[in-house]
């Protein structure tokens, strides 16, 4: 009988290899469930989950909500733009008010780094980090690894390059932790201004030539350029970025092998990736979205298992 070694899912850095294996095994069962005629199981019918989104989200929010509903949990949604946060309420006050409505699990996205860790120390509920600033986005990294495992059989020994705005990406950091934990080799590729200085201390190689990076890797995980987090100019123009770091069919055809293309979304078509690549058979972008529901069901199910009545 197995269970997670952690009480909350705050980041991949708190997990061990067994946790990831357990989440993937459980996700396999849920992937079978979501492909049934009736895509729902009654496991969590006495659990209430609050989705607190202090930052915009489409995919992650829908994916979490669907995962919760497929497990039969009761769901309440909160977005900061329509709430009393605008009136000056603190995070702990907001959350404690919601918890006094008897909520068991909180799924939170927040613009500040460490918001999930902070919350887990002050409130009595299971916390799932759905993205905290530029820090971690653990469920995205889990579903990315799960999708690689599904396509290539395993993650161990594979070479993965993360292309683009690594500096502002929580997806990149969580992916680096998750991939290394499973024995994959990781490199990052992008303009030097968008590669964090500490990156080599994580054991991650840096490549500034996109073609060389693609020749080296089995999988390319392409990130979005996060204009909304940029306070200064990190590269001269979007056009120049696209010319140097945009992935198009031409550059993929020039390689003597097939590279799997991933993207956490939302895609800026024509900027970091062209439409023909995003929609090609090498792209597993939509598989990532489908797997996202199964992986999030697994995480919620495994954490809910620890709640005793």
């Amino acid at each position, binding site marked *: *009988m197995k269970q997670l070694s952690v009480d909350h899912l705050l980041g991949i850095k708190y997990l061990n290899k067994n946790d990831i294996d357990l989440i993937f095994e*459980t996700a396999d069962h849920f992937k079978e*469930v979501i492909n049934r*005629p009736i895509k729902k199981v*009654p496991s969590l019918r006495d659990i209430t989950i609050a989705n607190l989104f202090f930052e915009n989200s489409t995919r992650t929010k829908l994916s979490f909500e669907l995962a919760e509903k497929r497990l039969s949990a009761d769901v309440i949604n909160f977005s900061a733009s329509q709430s009393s946060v605008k009136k000056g309420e603190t995070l702990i006050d907001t959350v404690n008010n919601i918890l006094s409505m008897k909520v068991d699990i909180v799924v939170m996205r927040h613009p500040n780094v460490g918001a999930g860790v902070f919350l887990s120390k002050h409130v009595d509920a299971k916390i799932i980090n759905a993205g905290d600033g530029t820090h971690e986005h653990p469920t995205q990294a889990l579903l990315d690894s799960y999708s690689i495992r599904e396509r290539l059989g395993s993650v161990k020994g594979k070479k993965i390059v993360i292309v683009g705005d690594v500096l502002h990406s929580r997806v990149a950091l969580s992916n680096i932790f998750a991939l290394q934990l499973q024995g994959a080799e990781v490199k990052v590729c992008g303009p030097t201004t968008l590669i964090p200085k500490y990156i080599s201390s994580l054991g991650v190689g840096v490549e500034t030539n996109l073609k060389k990076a693609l020749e080296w890797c089995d999988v390319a995980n392409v990130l979005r350029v996060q204009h909304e987090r940029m306070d200064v100019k990190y590269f001269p123009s979007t056009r120049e970025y696209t010319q140097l770091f945009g992935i198009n069919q031409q550059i993929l055809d020039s390689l003597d092998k097939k590279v799997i293309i991933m993207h956490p979304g939302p895609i800026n078509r024509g900027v970091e990736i062209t439409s023909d690549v995003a929609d090609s058979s090498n792209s597993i972008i939509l598989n990532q979205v489908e797997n996202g529901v199964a992986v999030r069901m697994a995480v919620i*199910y495994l954490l*809910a*298992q620890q709640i005793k009545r």
Partner: protein
Amino acid sequence: MSSKVLLNSKEIEIILHRLACQLIENHNDFSNTVLIGLQPRGIYLANRLKDLLTNEYHIKDLKLGLLDITFYRDDFRRRDAPLDANSTEIDFLIEDKNVVLIDDVLFSGRSIRAGLSAINDFGRPNLVELLVLIDRRFSRHLPIQPNYKGRQVDAINQEKVKVCWKETHNKDVVYIEDNI
């Protein structure tokens, strides 16, 4: 702890043949009937019956599915040990079919209750029947009774029925173990 043999391999063999014949009596050629083995332990009995019906009684195209009930159980978070899931393998629809649920031991009836809920997610069956190898008749928590049973046992609560199969323990035998 002491244990005694409740059924030996010869007796199990005879019981399996009887159960197969009883199923044929009610379901003829099985054209509208499917067998569903409950994970994890009901699948051995279900596989045996399928082999018997196919090889000895020449039933053609007999469908067998394996159903995992972990996500439907009513003791989620009420046990100390977490629940391990198994795989569900049902590659046909159950809509309007006659379903025979198969498990090794019927005790409280709660697994069967979970199985009945789980079955509904694959369609609305025309009829559901229950087949068990061992029926512990005085320990039910729910109003559930088997349609076909191998052996009825009047065991007290401290006693445990242990079913061993060739596939898992190298021989077919059913023990009754005393935990006092």
